[in-house]
């Protein structure tokens, strides 16, 4: 059937590039990962929007200034900020090709991340213990969803970080591992950016309300 449509003597038309031009492996990874982060941004925007809508619906339950402990939040914020700078130092060591230094800074970053998670889980358990669990009011549901989603991101960031430490330990600072570390760098700093929104709009403005 298809032979019939091609006039005799004519070359078969080519509708695609036969010899693809060379792409570096992972040449578009960073842009792709950035686009993922932007879509993640939309998830958080929706959670912030629902918190903004439900943030005043206490259903006669506890209000933000009664349950939020700002010193604890300040401690948590400093943990995340410190983990950001230590990850930055890991990236600098990576650029210099210092393997052990990279591993050391990654480990410290992971510990700060764990400290952040530990404090957050402590805060959650205290809240639930006080009867201010997610079922209590729309405000608390929105609060637990927003802050919990951020905490979940940090959890997966730590899992990713440990995975990369194993990878780097086995294969060294090869190009692929450098790319992965750069992706995690974007992810980790992005989580810190989201946390700025959380401590400002949820905690600080919540206490002021």
């Amino acid at each position: 059937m298809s032979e019939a449509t091609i006039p005799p003597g004519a070359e078969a038309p080519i509708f695609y590039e036969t010899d693809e031009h060379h792409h570096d492996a992972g040449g578009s990874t960073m842009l792709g990962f950035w686009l993922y982060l932007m879509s993640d941004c939309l998830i958080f925007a929706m959670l912030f929007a629902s918190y903004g809508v439900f943030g005043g619906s206490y259903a006669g339950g506890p209000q933000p200034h009664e349950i939020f402990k700002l010193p604890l939040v300040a401690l948590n914020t400093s943990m995340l900020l410190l983990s950001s700078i230590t990850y930055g130092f890991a990236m600098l060591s990576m650029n210099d090709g210092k393997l052990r230094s990279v591993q050391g800074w990654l480990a410290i970053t992971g510990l700060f991340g764990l400290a952040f998670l530990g404090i957050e889980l402590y805060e959650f358990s205290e809240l639930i213990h006080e009867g201010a669990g997610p079922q209590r009011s729309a405000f608390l549901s929105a609060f637990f969803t927003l802050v919990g989603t951020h905490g979940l991101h940090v959890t997966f960031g730590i899992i990713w970080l440990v995975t990369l430490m194993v990878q780097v330990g086995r294969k060294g600072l090869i190009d692929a591992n450098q790319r992965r570390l750069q992706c995690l760098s974007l992810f980790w700093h992005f989580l810190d950016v989201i946390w700025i929104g959380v401590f400002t709009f949820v905690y600080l403005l919540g206490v002021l309300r």
Partner: protein
Amino acid sequence: MSADTHGHGHDDHASGAPHGTRKDYIIGFVLSVILTAIPFGLVMSGIIADTRITAGIVMVFALVQIVVHMVYFLHMNSKSENGWTLMALIFTIIVVTICLAGSLWVMFHMNANMMPGMTSGDMAGM
């Protein structure tokens, strides 16, 4: 040719995903600490009596700190990936702004237009 591009591959990545210098990270960190400490200090001490002014200052500090993080930690600039990261970011900011402003605006009006007796304040009195 293929081998040649491979040899330069690393440098290309470096320009595609710019990495900061130690100075960048330190500046970013110091600025972040200041921009975090001041809002916390303002709210916890309650120096400014009018909470609306405090809220305004806190929000401005948050916006500035987000920009600081973007520049010094995420190394955003108009050149990375030929400007595509910046384009994606601007698009996201527009969508996020529409979603946030739209949701809050619509829902605020719906709350305001609730039937009397259905608002939470009246419910509490019932």
